């Protein structure tokens, strides 16, 4: 098993990645936003589907109104316009605002984090299928089964908290702090202090 990177190697890699993310994807590095996209993918699909249905219905209504206008006032009332031209535009899926690809891109990003972790673990000899995350956690929770409940509870706090704060260690901690965003500096200071206090409390409890 190889050693972890030194602080400056890790800093260079993480800092470079933060910049590369912005250059290639034109958005700040952030993972909680990808979670939100995945968790709300069904609702987004339903909203897009309903918008599409509405657009199709609206096209039929617009077409009928246009025909009625032509019948009542003649073609001079619509000089330069073709019957149904607007409704065709609205019915075009390209104009519906649907963006299913973005959910797919976020999913690919998250899956590739998993693959990256797997490749790194295989390369460094750290890969091992374990039912125990850490002996420290098992001691804290008085058993492996209880530790799984701790993880579920902790995960819920992470999921709820990062969505409420609209960012996590990458979004607020790396991207936000690098841009000197006041919200991100405050968020990072708070979540880091809380994590330190909690870890200190665990150390005392052992």
């Amino acid at each position, binding site marked *: 098993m190889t050693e972890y990177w030194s602080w400056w190697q*890790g800093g260079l*890699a993480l800092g470079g990645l933060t910049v590369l993310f912005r250059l290639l994807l034109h958005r700040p590095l952030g993972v909680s*936003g990808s979670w939100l996209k995945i968790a709300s993918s069904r609702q987004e699909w339903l909203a897009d589907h309903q918008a599409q249905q509405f657009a199709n219905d609206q096209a039929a209504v617009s077409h009928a109104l246009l025909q009625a206008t032509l019948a009542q006032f003649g073609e001079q009332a619509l000089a330069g316009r073709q019957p149904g031209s607007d409704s065709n535009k609205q019915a075009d899926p390209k104009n519906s605002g649907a963006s299913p690809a973005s959910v797919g891109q976020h999913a690919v*990003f998250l899956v590739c984090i998993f693959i990256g972790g797997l490749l790194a673990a295989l390369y460094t000899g750290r890969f091992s299928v374990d039912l125990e995350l850490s002996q*420290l956690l098992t001691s804290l929770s008085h058993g492996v089964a209880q530790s799984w409940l701790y993880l579920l509870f902790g995960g819920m706090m992470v999921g709820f908290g990062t969505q*409420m704060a609209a960012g996590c260690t*990458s979004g607020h901690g790396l991207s936000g702090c690098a841009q000197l965003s006041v*919200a991100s500096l405050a968020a990072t200071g708070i979540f880091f202090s809380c994590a330190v206090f909690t870890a200190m409390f665990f150390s005392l409890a052992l």
Partner: protein
Amino acid sequence: MSRLIKQYSANALLGLLLGMVLANIGFADYDELHRMLSLKDPRMLLSFVMAIIMAGTAFAVFAEYLPRQKKLFHPGIIPGSLLFGVGWAVCGACPAIVFVQLGMGKLPALMTLVGIFLGVKLYRYVHARYLRWDTGSCSV
């Protein structure tokens, strides 16, 4: 079509690199993380600070090519960060780290994954039903 392939490829490449970098620094190691949070080993904290300084310098020097996208200071920042901080220390994972832990073969991270998913879902419900402030998360 080619633009879409480029975007997918960029997401895949950056995901791979992020997973590798986080695994090699040690952020996915519960014990290593607790050594950092208990202030017993500053190595990972220094990496984090150096990354912020490096990225901040790049954003300042190349401001023309890397436009700022600042986060909103909304009412959820403080309580959300408090919850996240405690949760991070309890489960040893943030939304990216959980995937790295799974990649390293740590099966308990599945519970963290389920927990994060439930937490995100629960917040969506609570936000839509009671809170409704603009978190700016669409721009994340």
